[in-house]
């Protein structure tokens, strides 16, 4: 079933319905006890529910014939206790189904999260964060609602079946008429569904339009104010707002039509029932109690039928939610290890042997790429955006799988390591510093929880100085906000440096931040970089050339190939690609250059 507007994503698999049901059932297995209780109480609940009108019929029939007081009191007492039992059955049913559904959804969420975190970065490139979150959280929600609905449905079907059985015993013809009316309810309900879905989609789109308009206005409010643009914005807002009003009003009208329409069907069926039942009564075939049972059944029917009619799409949605969760769980990570070697400290020799790598089919980023980095060496990669610098770092960090050749660390195939152990020996500083919404200290201790406060202070001191911490309101205990947004970009970088320094990795990868930092902090960052590359193999993906002038080796990458390598002086003398890059790209930050220009003016 194709869902309009919901494109299937790449890692979606198609499960057959049976496979899906089987898989879902496996999640219920740990809660078998709850499930059994739910089923038992559900059956009892449905039974007691349908018994009430049946018993009432007995009372009414007895009333018409001989008015046996004892019998009447007995039946009434029975109805009372059945009502009480009914409520108690339902109570246990609900509690157990809450436990069961809560548990199943928890397990599903756990599996989905674990699977997600195991994926390599190619998966996260393809799948936006919002989508994953909604798969794990809201799909779980949808799924649980479907299960709740399914339980309702089963009980509704039970009730209808039990009532029909009684009715057949009383009067076959009227029962047949009753059964024939059921598809009528369905037809009405289903005919609404199609229009409703279309209108709902339109309504959502219109609302999304308004929302994005408001969002844009709020984000651009300062510009709007300084340029006095409010009037125009307001007029445009009124237009989209009015449009959303009109579309959503139509949608609401369609959706609201369903209950009255079902009511009309019900009204007709009741009128006919009274008419034909009346004839039966007049002929003496049907008693007043019988008629009561039939009428009650019709009244009882409306709600369950509505559930059934609206059930199918909701059920499909629930299955789809489950399928999405399963496909998330079952998608294989691309990065796979062949062996399980847990490495100790590395010497730090890195070899690329004829490596071929691509993010997308047919677009090789690296082709037959070979390179040796010596233990303890600091190497900087330089080149235009898209030249392949970051890819080299990503492969060493094992964030992506490469397609050809070999990468060896200290002579061991990178695929033979235990991934966790390997990454423990690796320090990675990403381009955009990422921090947790926690205290500053916990952020630094992220991977080394046992570190003492002194160690943390010491590390920070090495990574660009400790004094800026003292300016924070609570020092190391300062809560640094969501993603560290209470700190400046430069400060965030310093924190990440400290984190890596504390981790003390054998191999360091530094993807220089592109975000601009004020000159004061920039100076600190330079000092920190010099500190952290000390005594380990370091790879710097240089975007700014600040640091590269005194690294052991600069490697210029262009189009996935090494075009030049050597020290800063050597390459500048050569006057090739590097000199060109240096002269255009980075001169705005060089005092020499500035002074030269000043002279010329």
């Amino acid at each position, binding site marked *: 079933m194709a869902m309009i507007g919901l494109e299937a994503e790449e890692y979606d698999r198609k499960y057959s319905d049976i496979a899906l049901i089987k898989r879902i059932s496996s999640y219920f297995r740990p809660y078998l006890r709850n499930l059994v209780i739910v089923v038992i109480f559900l059956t009892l609940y449905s039974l007691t529910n349908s018994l009430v009108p049946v018993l009432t019929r007995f009372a009414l029939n007895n009333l018409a014939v001989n008015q046996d007081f004892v019998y009447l009191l007995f039946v009434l007492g029975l109805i009372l206790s059945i009502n009480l039992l009914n409520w108690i059955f339902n109570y246990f049913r609900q509690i157990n189904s809450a436990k069961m559904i809560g548990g199943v959804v928890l397990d599903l969420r756990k599996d989905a999260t674990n699977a997600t975190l195991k994926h390599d970065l190619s998966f996260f490139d393809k799948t936006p964060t919002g989508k994953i979150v909604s798969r794990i959280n809201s799909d779980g929600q949808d799924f649980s609602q479907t299960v709740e609905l399914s339980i309702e449905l089963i009980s509704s079907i039970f009730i209808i079946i039990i009532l029909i059985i009684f009715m057949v015993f009383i009067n076959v013809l009227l029962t047949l008429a009753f059964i024939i009316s059921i598809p009528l309810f369905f037809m009405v309900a289903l005919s609404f569904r199609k229009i409703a879905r279309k209108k709902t989609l339109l309504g959502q789109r219109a609302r999304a339009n308004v929302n994005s308009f408001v969002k844009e206005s709020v984000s651009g409010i300062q510009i709007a104010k300084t*340029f006095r643009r409010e009037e125009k914005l307001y007029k445009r807002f009124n237009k989209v707002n009015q449009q959303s009003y009109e579309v959503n009003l139509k949608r609401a009208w369609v959706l609201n039509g369903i209950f*009255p329409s079902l009511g009309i069907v019900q009204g007709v069926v009741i009128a006919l029932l009274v008419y034909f039942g009346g004839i039966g009564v007049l002929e003496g075939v049907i008693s*007043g109690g019988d008629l009561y049972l039939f009428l009650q059944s019709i009244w009882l029917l409306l709600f369950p039928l509505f559930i059934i009619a609206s059930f199918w799409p909701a059920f499909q949605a629930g299955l789809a939610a489950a399928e999405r969760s399963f496909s998330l769980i079952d998608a294989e990570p691309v990065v796979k290890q062949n062996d399980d070697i847990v490495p100790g400290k590395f010497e730090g020799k890195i070899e690329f042997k004829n490596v071929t790598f691509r993010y997308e089919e047919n677009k090789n980023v690296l082709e037959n790429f070979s390179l040796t980095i010596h233990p303890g060496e600091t190497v900087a990669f330089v080149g235009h955006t898209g030249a392949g610098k970051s890819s080299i770092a990503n492969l060493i960090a094992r964030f992506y799988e490469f397609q050809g050749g070999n990468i060896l660390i200290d002579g061991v195939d990178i695929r033979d390591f235990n991934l966790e152990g390997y990454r423990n020996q690796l320090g990675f500083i990403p381009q955009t510093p990422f921090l947790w919404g926690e205290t500053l200290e916990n952020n630094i201790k992220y991977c080394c929880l046992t570190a003492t406060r002194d160690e943390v202070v010491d590390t920070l001191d090495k990574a660009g100085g400790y004094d800026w911490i003292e300016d924070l309101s609570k020092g190391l205990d300062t809560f640094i906000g969501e993603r560290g947004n209470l700190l400046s970009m430069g400060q965030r970088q310093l924190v990440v440096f400290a984190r890596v320094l504390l981790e003390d990795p054998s191999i360091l990868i530094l993807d220089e931040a592109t975000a601009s930092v004020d000159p004061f902090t920039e100076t600190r960052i330079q000092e920190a970089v010099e500190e952290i590359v000390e005594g380990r193999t370091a790879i710097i993906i240089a975007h700014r050339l600040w640091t590269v002038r005194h690294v052991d080796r600069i490697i210029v990458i262009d189009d996935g190939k090494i075009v030049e390598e050597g020290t800063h002086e050597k390459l500048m003398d050569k006057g090739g690609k590097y000199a060109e890059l240096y002269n255009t*790209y980075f001169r705005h930050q060089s005092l020499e250059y*500035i002074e030269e220009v*000043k002279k010329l003016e």
Partner: protein
Amino acid sequence: MSKPISELQKEFSPEEDPYQSARKKGASRWIIAHLFHGTNKLIIVIVIFSTVLSANLASANMVIIGQAISEFLNGNGSNLIYYLIIILLLGLGGPLVRLINFMLREILAQRMERDTRKEFYSSLLGKSQSFHDRQETGELMARATDDVRNLNFLVSPALSLILESFTSLIIPAIYVLLFYPTQLIITPISFSILFLIFLWDYNKRIGPVTRDLRSQYGKMNSVLNEALSGIETIKATAQEKTEALKYYLQAKEYRNFYVERGKVQAKYLPILLYALSVTIGLGHAIFLYTNGLMGIGEIIGYVGLLTQLRFPTNISIFVFGIIRLATAGAERLLELMNQKTEIDENISGISQSIDGEIEFKNVTFIYPGGDKPVLNDISFKIEAGKTAAIVGTTGSGKTTLTKLISRLYDINEGKILIDGIDIKDYSLKSLRSQISYIEQDLFLFSDTIIENITFGRTSSIEDVKRVAKEAQAHDFISNFPDQYETEVGERGVTLSGGEKQRVAIARAFLTDPRILILDDSTSAIDSETEDKIQRAIKNILRNRTTLLITHRLSQIRWADLIIVLKRGKIAAKGTHEELLLTSQEYRKIFVKKFDTQAEKILEKVK
């Protein structure tokens, strides 16, 4: 210093504002004001009338069915056809009246959403910049989407269902009184009383659990969101297990609340009450039958009336949740809308064109609601037409300082003078029209490029092209298929940071302000773009007073005056040469150990 509130003007106000006084009187008064606004009153009258009518039709149907059965049981079939028609008409009429009712109440509901959103939006436009700085976009969006939508749900279904519930508690009772022995009223009345008590009690218990559940869902979302945005870091540090556990703990807590809520829901007493009431009512009717006061048909009719109580029983569970959400939302909306806008426009103030000399005299500024001064005793003077660079670490107050000049905020102490006149004496509109900003966080509206450059003013395409060329933007704009008519932003092409910056510079060229504030602390891009941007900036600096917030040493070097800010205070100011001598911190950023040449320069300067 500031004028009384009555004289304060809104920065922006739409045509009319009928809800102004209601906003001050709290959420329910405000909701009522919206509900009964204009033609809504008539619709409400019809809605109430049709609700009562449809309850009447349903109850009448029960009574007549009972009557019909009674007649049939007595062997009287003469009115069979007559009953068929009546019951059919009542059976059709009820739903039809309901349909009309539903359609009308939807109009009320959708209007509520439309009008409150409109009110909120215009209120946002009217707020001062300081208000917007305090608010997070996500927060405001939640108000404009969820809260406003919940107000829609408040009208339909919540309030309509309450109305329907009340009528289906009362109308059947009236029919019992009219058509059946008076004492039968005991059951529906005692049901109603107990029902309301139980409902109140249930509501009290379900409220906190539901709130907990919802907020736990939020926590679950944010933990997962955070982990996914930090996935690179998690992988690099091999902390997948820790993060999985962190999420699991939140999800488990959610499960616990879910089970907790299930327990409260399972104990919903009104359902039991309803079932018992119907049975007791039946027993009561049977008792009256044995005394010859009722017939079988009447019993069926009476029990039929009692079954109408099922509606309020089943429906009330979820009505209260909606009401709670909606009133909480309304309160949040009002809280935002009722905040004052702090700036006085001074419409009658000076509106002459300015030269552009800027002077700060002992300026101290505290953000509204803050306690520490962001800027402390700031004094400096920029001559007309000169360029000043402001440098300092993030949080040192650079951006705030520039915002004070166009009175996006008013200062607490000291004076800001332009051409020797206090900025408060200028008309705000005139003042702002002569000051332009090119921001760090460049923002373009989802519109065509030309619209983003002209921004509503009528300029010839030649003029636009001219400024685009000066801003080094013409080339890339010409490369788009639709050129200046290219849509940018959400529905159109995405411009890079450097391209956006040049569009903004073009816009500033067109405005030709006397004072320009340029926040150029964006990141370095590729060489060619970098060169172009620098050229564009050099062009725009000419002939106007400029305040530059910059990280680029080249720009700092070119400035006539350099102001070094540190924690809200001026740490140093002067020309480049002066600062190299006087400020150690300044020297540190310029003199790198690998900058061999710099040492020499420094020697020379000394």
